[in-house]
């Protein structure tokens, strides 16, 4: 140690103060440099639980381990394969987004997507038949997150759907996600009409095989994380805006796609499909975030969030210190802007695994990177900056790979600390699409949402309980 007490005694101290203002005033009168904290009582959590976690000697090191794994994680696109091969699922199981649910508790868009998937797989002859077998429990349902998988919106993944296969060279993890269908009437938003089923069949028969051969023909795997890093410099935040990322993915993949031995019309259709879908990259970004967050699983003593996810009925979170345990509460309904003449009454409660982007520190956390969509936040660029500033106070690290130009190239706020959420009273900010609440509707808008506080209340109590037992 060079100077005792970190140099405390070598010069009049500069001070950060929390609490009674009169002390700071007296210090300023003496010419001291004082930064006042805008302290207020915690948003939730008992003082005992908050203190237990604050004093847990494992916490600082555990959180550092967890977030450093997140920061170190890479993401390489290594293959494209049907879910049937990748997931090794039992027959007649469908994956869905968010925490576990049942047909009875499933919301409209989730039911719509499950119905569409049953018809698509040929398990049901029509919509009524699909509803019957789903209601009869003939189709097993399981969260994507239980299978190293993430899915946007309903996240319904069936055996015949093709999946992006990503690997994390740093931690050795794998993660998978189905292919993005585009906007409007799409299965993930709960639509299941002929247009939806026809597109899914084309994706199965043309898009998937072409992408597989294209990806396998590349000399090196595509670095998906590097694209996400560039997107933040190009006005995307990686959740509600993936425009630059989708174009970069197209740029990277198109030479290999063109080189695939397939009918020219198919190649053209594939390129047109990718080029016409502003959210094509989202299904690559999500498993990239999933790889990073899974790398931080099972770190005893860590209060970092590893999963933020919604199934259209409930919001669920998991933490690094509590393993696979879900902390769930009824999902909020997003507020934002609506397509056509849809309005707030048409929007379903929050849905999708895509909030993994916020867990990773992009999306709503990096709102400041995407001024083009700040109106979702309520209007102005300063609002977006303020949102990101607040998120820095909830998180454990700044991700040096994910820089936000307007913040002076500060790294994105990464690794949500449940304890910080409680102490600040600020909930994570999530950017999201909005599905219609009636099955079959499709997308109705896009906007903002926050997790229910109750998820974090439960997680905090569980972390404190684990800490006492440790």
């Amino acid at each position, binding site marked *: 140690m060079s100077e*005792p007490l970190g140099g405390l005694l070598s010069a009049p101290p500069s001070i950060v103060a*929390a609490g009674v203002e009169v*002390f700071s005033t007296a210090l300023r009168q003496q010419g001291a440099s004082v930064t006042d904290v805008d302290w207020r009582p915690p948003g939730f959590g008992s003082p005992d639980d*908050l*203190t237990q976690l604050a004093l847990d000697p494992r916490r600082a090191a555990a959180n550092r381990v967890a977030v450093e794994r997140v920061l170190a994680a890479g993401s390489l696109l290594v293959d494209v394969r049907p879910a049937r091969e990748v997931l090794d699922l039992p027959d007649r199981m469908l994956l869905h987004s968010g925490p576990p649910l049942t047909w009875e508790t499933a919301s409209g868009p989730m039911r719509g997507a499950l119905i569409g998937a049953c018809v698509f797989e040929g398990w049901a002859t029509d919509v009524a038949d699909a509803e019957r077998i789903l209601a009869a429990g003939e189709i097993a349902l399981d969260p994507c997150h239980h299978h190293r998988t993430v899915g946007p919106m309903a996240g319904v993944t069936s055996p015949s759907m093709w999946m992006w296969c990503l690997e994390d060279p740093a931690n050795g993890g794998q993660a998978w996600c189905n292919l993005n269908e585009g906007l409007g009437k799409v299965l993930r938003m709960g639509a299941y009409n002929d247009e939806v089923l026809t597109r899914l069949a084309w994706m199965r028969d043309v898009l998937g095989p072409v992408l597989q051969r294209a990806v396998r023909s590349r000399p090196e795997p595509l670095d998906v994380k590097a694209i996400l890093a560039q997107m933040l410099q190009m006005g995307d935040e990686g959740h509600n805006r993936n425009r630059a990322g989708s174009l970069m993915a197209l740029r990277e993949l198109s030479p290999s796609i063109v080189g695939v031995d397939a009918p020219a019309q198919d190649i053209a259709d594939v390129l047109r499909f990718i080029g016409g879908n502003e959210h094509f990259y989202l299904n690559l970004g999500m498993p990239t975030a999933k790889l990073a967050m899974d790398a931080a699983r099972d770190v005893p003593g860590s209060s970092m969030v590893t999963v933020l996810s919604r199934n259209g009925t409930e919001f669920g979170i998991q933490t690094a210190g509590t393993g696979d345990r879900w902390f769930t509460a009824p999902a909020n309904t997003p507020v934002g802007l609506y397509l056509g003449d849809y309005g707030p009454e048409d929007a379903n409660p929050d849905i999708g695994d895509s909030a993994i982007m916020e867990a990773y520190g992009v999306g709503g956390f990096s709102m400041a990177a995407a001024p083009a969509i700040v*109106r979702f936040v309520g209007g102005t660029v300063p609002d977006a900056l303020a949102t990101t*500033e607040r998120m820095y106070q909830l998180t454990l690290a700044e991700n040096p790979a994910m820089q936000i130009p307007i913040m002076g190239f500060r790294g994105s706020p990464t690794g949500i600390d449940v304890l910080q959420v409680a102490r600040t009273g600020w909930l994570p900010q999530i950017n999201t699409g909005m599905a219609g609440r009636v099955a079959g509707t499709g997308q109705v808008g896009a906007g903002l949402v926050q997790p229910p506080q109750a998820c974090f209340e439960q997680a905090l109590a569980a972390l404190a309980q684990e800490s006492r037992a440790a």
Partner: protein
Amino acid sequence: MSDSPSRHVSLRSGVYADSVRLMQVSREIGDRSGVHTVVVAMATPLNLELAAGMGLAPDGEAKPDQLLIALTATDDAELAAAVAAVDAALTARADRGEAQTIPARTIGAGLDGAPDPTLAIISVPGPYAVAEAADAIAAGRSVLIFSDGVPVEHEVALKRAAHDAGVLVMGPDCGTAIVSGLALGFANVVRRGPVGLVAASGTGAQQVSCLLDAAGVGVSHVLGVGGRDLSEAVGGLATLDALAALDADPATERVLLVSKPPAPAVAARVAEVAKGLSVPVRSAALSPEQPDLTAAVEALLGDLGIAVPEWPSRPGTADAVPDGAVLKGFYSGGTLADETMLIAAPSLGDIRSNTPLRPELDLGTDLAARGHVVVDFGDDALTVGRAHPMIDPTLRLEAIAGLAAGGEAAVLLLDVVLGHGADPDPAATLVPALRSAGLPTVVALVGTEADPQCWSRQADALAEAGAAVFASNAAATRYALSLIGDGHE
């Protein structure tokens, strides 16, 4: 509402706005009372389908780079106004918004954002102070915890973590510190110099630093460690760290340890460690054998080869103290109250108190009990829901009035503590109270000439009201005892 609403559908080329902006415009126009339905969107297949679903499909071929404006309204006038409003909204310059600063909500965030901070000060409610203090320690910063109500096991955990991190926890319940001349909390304006204080007692540190100042000797630092630091439970964790830091501090040539009566085993351990330091350490920890902070200061002056001055005082006007008068010590400083009881007990015998020397002398809640009594109005039990008596004199003034009304023959002994954080003019409320009480009164006035309240100005005002005033609490106590002794004669 008309049965057949007015309808407008048009396509415009060469106009582009992003989809978010267009959704916002659609919502603005849709909110107009005369408008039924509205789509303002680029003419992509998806948007054309949405418009068709609302019965607003454009005629002819639409291209995705064209802007579709389609709406229905109650009548032609509303429709025309709505179309004009679309044009206005599309050309309106967006509100750039006001820049906002997001203040730090926690000590952790505050330390993260401040330029080169060296110390955190925490005065939030006790139950929440630990998390804030833990932030500072985790960031490698020392922390002063003014808050009380922190459980002792949490204090121990924080101090252990701080020791491991090479930083200091001052407190909890630490009201007084001076670091490199900067007064933190309740502290006096004293000269800088070679003496470092480690203080498990706030008013004790103030008494000692003010007497040193009166003798022309300054302090390098006053490191408060919290009143419980030398208890069995805490074991002197912060005291040992503070001693080590002062040992390494080039500005500190001698150290004086100030404390209420410590746990003997802890005092012995601290003394043992102190012996191994290169800086000489003298203890002014109170005990029946060493009851006197002033004597400890005088001994330190002897160490420094400096003559002991005549401690400042003002004579009182008390002449007639009746036989059998009792001592009523009404204190704001706990350590000063302890010192008074330790000095007075040998001549007065048992003194009852809310902070007694022995448990059987506990006064309970009867502050108006008869006999020799010393009350610490700064004790936690008397400060719940109100400010410390160094700021808010109400409770003590009520007790003085009550004593006068009760008619018990008594000598009133008070401390008045000056300095940063204290009542800006304590004499202003005390002088009328003393005049009205008419009791023989002795005041220990702890402060310096440079304090915002100015020692002489306060002393003169109090003496004017008839009180005898002493800069030394020990001297004040002995004078009060002499008055009582005179009364016995």
